[in-house]
């Protein structure tokens, strides 16, 4: 993308030292769908999810100077993860789900099937947030264990123990009711 001198009048945009200010916004925009998915999986409602996404985008734009041109996607995911973990630390857990959220919750679940997705997502919400983030980064977002370790700046052993804790907890939750393991007699 060549720029003629007249085209870009904003000095601010030119000051950013990342490869090109154009590609920065373009990359965020291209990343929004998967960031939105990750955001929704970390949070409990569409409202919370969109707020987190917006925080993440603002934070990314403000701290664009810190991006060193290496893996942009991991950088954005890290921002979102940290925002989420920190926000939950400072804000006390809300006692119950508000009206607005109750609506989106109802809308996002399948009214016909009370099972499956809903139970697993409900179980997911009972996990410690660090373990939940690691599980989602691996399973839904497709990151390798070492990549998650690098992204969150934790040892890979910690990634594995969080993953293990998350999986065992989900397994126990799901086993508490209704699901019976298959056994075909030999």
């Amino acid at each position, binding site marked *: *993308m060549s720029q003629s001198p007249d085209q*870009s*009048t*904003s000095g*601010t*945009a030119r000051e950013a030292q990342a490869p090109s*200010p*154009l590609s*920065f*916004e*373009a990359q*965020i*925009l291209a990343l*929004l*769908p*998967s960031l*939105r*998915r990750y955001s*929704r*999986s970390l949070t409990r409602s569409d409202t919370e*999810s*969109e*707020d987190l*996404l*917006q925080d993440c*985008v*603002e934070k990314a*734009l*403000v701290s664009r100077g810190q991006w060193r041109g290496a893996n942009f996607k991991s950088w954005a995911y890290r921002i979102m993860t940290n925002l989420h973990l920190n926000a939950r630390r400072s804000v006390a857990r809300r006692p119950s789900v508000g009206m607005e959220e109750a609506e989106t919750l109802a809308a996002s679940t*399948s009214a*016909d*099937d*009370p*099972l*499956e*997705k809903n139970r*697993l*997502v409900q179980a*997911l919400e009972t996990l410690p947030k660090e373990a939940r983030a690691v*599980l*989602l980064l*691996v*399973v*839904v977002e497709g990151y*390798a*264990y070492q990549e998650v370790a690098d992204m969150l700046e934790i040892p890979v052993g910690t990634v*594995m123990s969080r*993953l*293990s804790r998350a*999986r065992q907890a*989900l*397994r126990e939750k*799901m086993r508490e009711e*209704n*699901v*019976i*393991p*298959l056994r*075909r*007699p030999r």
Partner: protein
Amino acid sequence: MTEAGSVSEAELHAYADGFLDEVDRARVQSFLAENPDAAQMVADWQEQNDELRAAFAGHERSKPSDIQLLTGGLARTNTRPSRRFALAAAAVLIFAAGALGGHYGPLLFERPDIQLAYTEILPREARNAFLVYASEVRHPVEVFANEETHLANWLGKRLSIANLKVPNLQAQGFKLVGGRLLPVGGKPGAMFMYEDQAGQRLTVLVGRNKENRTTSFRFASVNTVETFYWIDGELGYAVTGEISRDMLRRVAEECYRQFPS
């Protein structure tokens, strides 16, 4: 990790997540073959993986308001407007939108189709079939039990199942009424109907599962209609009735035993 026959928990996770190379995968596989508890655990993890991906896949999408996210133009309750970058962002976005239009334009604002997982379709269709057909007095089925061989051959052919056997539930107190062809997940499926001496009916549904995976028995209940369902590779099964969970489960387990794996 080094000695043959020993597998670490980390390797089990890597196996479940598909991160192992061929050699390690084979080693873990033979370990799992000899350790049914570990195999069940890994199978549960993989099922969690599938369900988690399915649960959030629909949220991976663009919104027309995404551009405003970048320009800070989106209103929200708890926000402080961050105008500092808004102008700059707006300026570059003119280019960005143009550049993206070429590459992502058709994709970007298109909502992905919401795809229901087979595990959602199956119990619902099983319940609907039960509600529609089990109350039929004269025509609950297309082919009655007196033509059981024909019924099995016909439905086996439509579902491409070699040697489809109609489950025998006599031991559970249910005798075959008959069966019919019906759509399950948009493909030909089979429904078998049974009734006990009191005339209480239950249905067994068999459908083709293109996702080709295996699940545990699952239970779905709406009002008084109970459904047990499971997926075994390319086929999905559901047992539905207005009977006790316990009885239904016994029937489901009997069907599982009798259907070819």
